[in-house]
């Protein structure tokens, strides 16, 4: 088990920096931004592939001056910087990421598409379908004196409401059909069983239409929760939602550029696909394709690509309240086209 990387110092005030590897995506923004080169990005691809067991980054405790810039620049909340036990994210002097990911409960129909695609399993859905018996009304009657347990009704029933019961009849465990059960909670009173029964043993009357004014509207009840602590604002939920109920604000705005002078090695390499925290990369026709709508421009792919084929061009970052001029200068290095 790897110990959590942490730096702590007590002088006029107590300062501590803690790396939370479970939230880290290995993008290396922290090591890019660190003014004292105290953060080394580990072998991200081997880690992502499970070939080595290490934290994504390594903090050099002797070099770190505990300025907190890395913690402010990390869009994934993977570095926690505290001054006198207070997280700088809560201190008014420090920068704030304006990130948001939410699912509007009013427009959500609980289809669950977002749950399936979320790369971080950050969405929880609980759904209750209406009981069929409240909306389909009728009467059924099976005359067991007439029934020969042939099983035709069971086979044709589209609602799986009929079961022919097999019971032991002697000591050799020989089974024989000698019972029939109709589950009224499943029956939709379609009448197919009655029509197929060779013995006229089934009576089914559908009274749904007769009572239609008294039957309530079908309603799907549900609950959807997006765990912002796990969310990395990739935008998958927003892209997949058929009801436009999900909205995501990403950390950066900009674009991915595939360099024209270098060649993507596609299926032989797929490093970009393996390190992408957003599942935004696919290898199509032996070439890497990155879906910008699902990408957070973290740059993990760009660093993992041995060909330097992927360039990140961040045009804007949604980090506000940068009050220090020197911090502003440092942070602005994250903007612009990444160098090869």
């Amino acid at each position, binding site marked *: 088990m790897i110990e959590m990387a942490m730096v702590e110092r007590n002088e006029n005030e107590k300062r501590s920096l803690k790396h939370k590897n479970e939230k880290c995506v290995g993008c290396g923004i922290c090591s890019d931004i660190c003014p004292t080169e105290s953060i080394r990005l580990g*072998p991200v*691809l*081997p880690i992502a*592939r499970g*070939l*080595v067991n290490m934290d994504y980054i390594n903090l050099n405790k002797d070099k770190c001056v505990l300025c907190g810039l890395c913690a402010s620049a990390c869009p994934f909340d993977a570095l926690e910087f505290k001054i006198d036990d207070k997280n700088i994210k809560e201190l008014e002097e420090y920068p704030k990421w304006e990130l948001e990911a939410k699912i509007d409960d009013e427009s959500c129909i609980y289809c669950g598409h977002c749950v399936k695609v979320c790369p971080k399993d950050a969405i929880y859905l609980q759904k209750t379908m209406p009981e069929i018996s409240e909306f389909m009304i009728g009467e059924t009657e099976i005359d067991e004196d007439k029934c020969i347990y042939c099983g035709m009704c069971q086979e044709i029933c589209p609602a799986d409401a009929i079961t022919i019961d097999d019971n032991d009849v002697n000591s050799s465990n020989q089974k024989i059909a000698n019972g029939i059960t109709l589950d009224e909670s499943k029956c939709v009173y379609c009448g197919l069983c009655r029509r197929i029964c060779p013995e006229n043993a089934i009576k089914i009357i559908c009274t749904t239409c007769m009572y239609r004014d008294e039957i309530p509207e079908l309603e799907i009840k549900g609950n959807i929760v997006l765990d912002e602590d796990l969310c990395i604002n990739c935008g998958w939920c927003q892209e997949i939602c058929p009801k436009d109920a999900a909205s995501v604000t990403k950390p950066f705005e900009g674009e991915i550029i595939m360099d024209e002078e270098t060649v993507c*090695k596609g299926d*032989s*390499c797929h*490093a970009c696909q393996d390190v992408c925290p957003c599942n935004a990369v696919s290898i199509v026709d032996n070439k890497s394709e990155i879906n910008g709508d699902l990408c957070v421009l973290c740059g993990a792919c760009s660093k*993992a690509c*041995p*060909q330097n084929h992927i360039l990140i061009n961040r045009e804007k970052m949604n980090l506000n309240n940068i009050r220090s001029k020197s911090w502003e200068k440092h942070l602005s290095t994250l903007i612009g086209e990444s160098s090869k």
Partner: protein
Amino acid sequence: MPVIIDTEKCGKIENCPGEGLCIKICEQGALFEENGDVVLIREKCDDCDLCIQNCPNNAVSKE
């Protein structure tokens, strides 16, 4: 063009901090272990350069 392994920098796999990471990361089967050394099958190398980038000893390169 296939990669070149600097045997001096590489050393024996048992001493590699990545425990033969290049062999594990190469999906072309171009690198394998023979008597504790890393051996390259030139014909299988696909020039993806993953071994160059990930070798902890900087022992893999190209001309």
